[in-house]
């Protein structure tokens, strides 16, 4: 419940940012640089005089968008591959699982940095890198659940009456494997947000002047000894958001996936 409440607050702030933010997140005012929290700027300002509260709630929009898109990329690629692998088996299964093994062999950040080096540093490319990193999760979960579901009688019957493979997969298998995948997606939402924030911290993700928590942490770190708020508040926002998403994800898993099929790593 606490997680859900927190998440609702985060989402509300992110969605309502244009209406509730007192300042533009991009407007600089060097004369108010590193201003401490006050009634004028409730969370203070950063090194360029930008209002931190505005940047944090706009950063929430960025982070949630990042999480959904990266997770979406992984789902759109990983789930079909998992279903295909589990459904057909044989050399298709072997080939796909070896590809997954290759991806899993790379440390996540190394894989991401390799992708960024090829594509260039930017937020969209960071989302792609994060999505690619978690594709194996969906392939494995999709495969594991498909292996079980494909033996059910209704699937066998569908094949017996001549249903095309794609129709069988989409109509009969996919709906029955969605629950653990939904739980996995909810848990991955947090990890992709954190992953992209990490890339942004390293300068490989969001680029200035984007309001994004990772880049705000990196910028605030340089002035930590003079002003703690530009680094601390984005960090707290990130912490609370990840906590909320993880708590909701755990709750969903307890409710929808008691057998723990969504546990992969």
């Amino acid at each position, binding site marked *: 419940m606490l997680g859900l409440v927190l998440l609702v607050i985060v989402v509300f702030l992110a969605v309502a940012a244009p209406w509730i933010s007192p300042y533009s997140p*991009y407007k600089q005012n*060097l*004369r108010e640089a590193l201003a401490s929290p006050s009634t004028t700027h409730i969370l203070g300002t950063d090194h*360029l005089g930008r209002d931190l509260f505005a940047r944090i709630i706009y950063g929430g929009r960025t982070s949630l968008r990042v999480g959904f898109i990266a997770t979406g990329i992984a789902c759109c690629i990983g789930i079909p591959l998992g279903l295909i692998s589990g459904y057909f088996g044989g050399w298709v299964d072997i080939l796909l699982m070896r590809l997954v093994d290759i991806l899993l062999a790379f440390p996540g950040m190394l894989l991401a940095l390799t992708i960024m080096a090829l594509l260039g540093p930017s937020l969209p490319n960071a989302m792609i890198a994060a999505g690619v990193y978690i594709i194996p999760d969906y392939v494995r979960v999709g495969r594991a659940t498909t292996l079980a579901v494909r033996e059910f009688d209704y699937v066998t019957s569908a094949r017996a009456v001549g249903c095309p493979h794609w129709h069988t997969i989409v109509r009969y298998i996919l709906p029955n494997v969605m629950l653990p995948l939904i739980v996995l997606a909810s848990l991955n939402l947090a990890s992709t947000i954190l992953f992209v924030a990490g890339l942004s911290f390293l300068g490989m993700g969001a680029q200035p*002047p984007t309001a994004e928590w990772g880049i705000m942490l990196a910028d605030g770190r340089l002035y930590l000894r003079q002003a703690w708020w530009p680094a601390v508040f984005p960090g707290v926002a990130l912490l609370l958001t990840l906590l909320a998403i993880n708590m909701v994800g755990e709750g969903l898993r307890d409710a929808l996936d008691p057998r723990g099929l969504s546990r992969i790593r």
Partner: protein
Amino acid sequence: MSVKSPKKMYLSVLVVLVLCATLLVAPVAGAKPVDGGHLTIAFYSSIQDTADLCKATAVFTKMIVANALDTLIAKDPATGLYYPGLAKAWEISPDGVSITLYLREDVTFHDGTPFNAEAVKANFDHIANTPDCAGKEAYSKLGVGDSLAGYQVLDEYTIQITYNQINARMVENMADPFVGAMHSPTAFVQYGADYGQEALVGTGPFVFVEWTGDQGKAVFSRNPDYNWAPEFYSHQGPAYLEGFTVQGIGDVTTRAAVVEIGDVDMAIVQPGDYLRLVDQPGFKGWLQSRKGWGDLSINLSNPILADLRVRQAIAHAIDKVAINMSPVFQGLGEIKYSEFTEGIWGSDPSPEEVFGPYNLSYDPARSEELLEAVGWLDTDNNGIREAHDVAGVEDGTELHLLNLVRDYEKAYHEIIQGMLAEVGIDVEVRVHDFATRETLLFDGEFDIAPWPTTAQSFLAFNEEMHSQTVPFYNIGFYGNPVVDALLDGALATTDPDLQREYYRLVAIQVLKDLASIPTVKANNTWIMADYVEDVKSDLMSVGFDLYDAWLDQ
């Protein structure tokens, strides 16, 4: 109460006054350099690619290894004047095309190889004939394949270098570590292509010991035989320090942390940490004014930026005072009025007096007027102007500029990004590592970019503004026949006053053309333990000269 003896009273007062004066003066007069101690320095990097300066591309390498090398002619970093170095005297021919160097006879390399004219010739041969040196700074400064006619050993301690034309840079180049610093010819033979990776053998006050990589350590020890320091140093004989270590730490906050906890004796930090630590017990600061030129370079091959009014709009949108007072500079930067800093131009008259009248003031309203006059309007109210009947630009194209920066320039250029956004110019600030950025700049894949260069004098300005050097160093594709003629004229004379006048006119023309926009120059902010004494600036005013340095411990 009566005064018993006025004379005795006056005498007593006089004695007291003398004693007081002695106590005040004594601590200052009594501080004498002490032998010993090992200095540790946290710097941007240690030696980056190779210690062989002929092949090196990283400027930080030059700053570090210069402490192990001597140049043929010595230049006092403080005054810019030239002194005998490894050459005890030199003579320029009346026609200005050759320089004869009369070498010292008492110098040996760190490996015992005697220094003589054949050693100098071996060094020039190394620059001219080593494949990895071709096209790099030492190669072009020596004039290989260009203005250099040749070099001859006249006797054991005399060598003459001859050019095809008047060379105004002869003396400067012999004082430049890239060309004029001497390495042991024995070491060139012994180490071959690995010279610079496995060894560095010079004649300098410090001997190379070891190097563990870019973000590792470079360790040097004292040369006990050193006895040929140029006369502008405060002492002769071996260095006071037993040695020094440069620790490469790329992250600026980590450098501040290690000097604060005492892991290193001195570190280059950011302005905020400088101001925080400088007045703390146990520390002192050193504000090192960088020389050099160049600032916000403009890619004139971009049709958007080819219009002078757009460049003027950019200049009017930049508030230099606000930049300098921001947390990025903390007021410790130097507002620039031309391509030349005070360290290059001098202070009498100052760059502000000479070039200030040609600078465009901070005037965002004027900036917007200029952009609108060109045809850049924001009709869709998204905060970014788009083209309407702009010459060479398709209608509807948004006014978007790409700014390529290095990581330590990001914060500064975010400020410029914000200032240009106020007038409807959208700037993308993209961070790249040194090598990638240079490649992109030389390929012209940018719109604006910081292009500050450390330098010793005006003369190297030719590389950045002459049309013949496009795009290598003249990254902005700038070409003005008037400027070319002035730069050629400056190189055709050895009269320093005439050269200065040529460069004054060049700088003014560059300001009028806005090929480069002067903004704010960062100065190096060093924090050191209070027992570190007499560290001097190197020739490039970015590194350190440790010959006179000592530790008051």
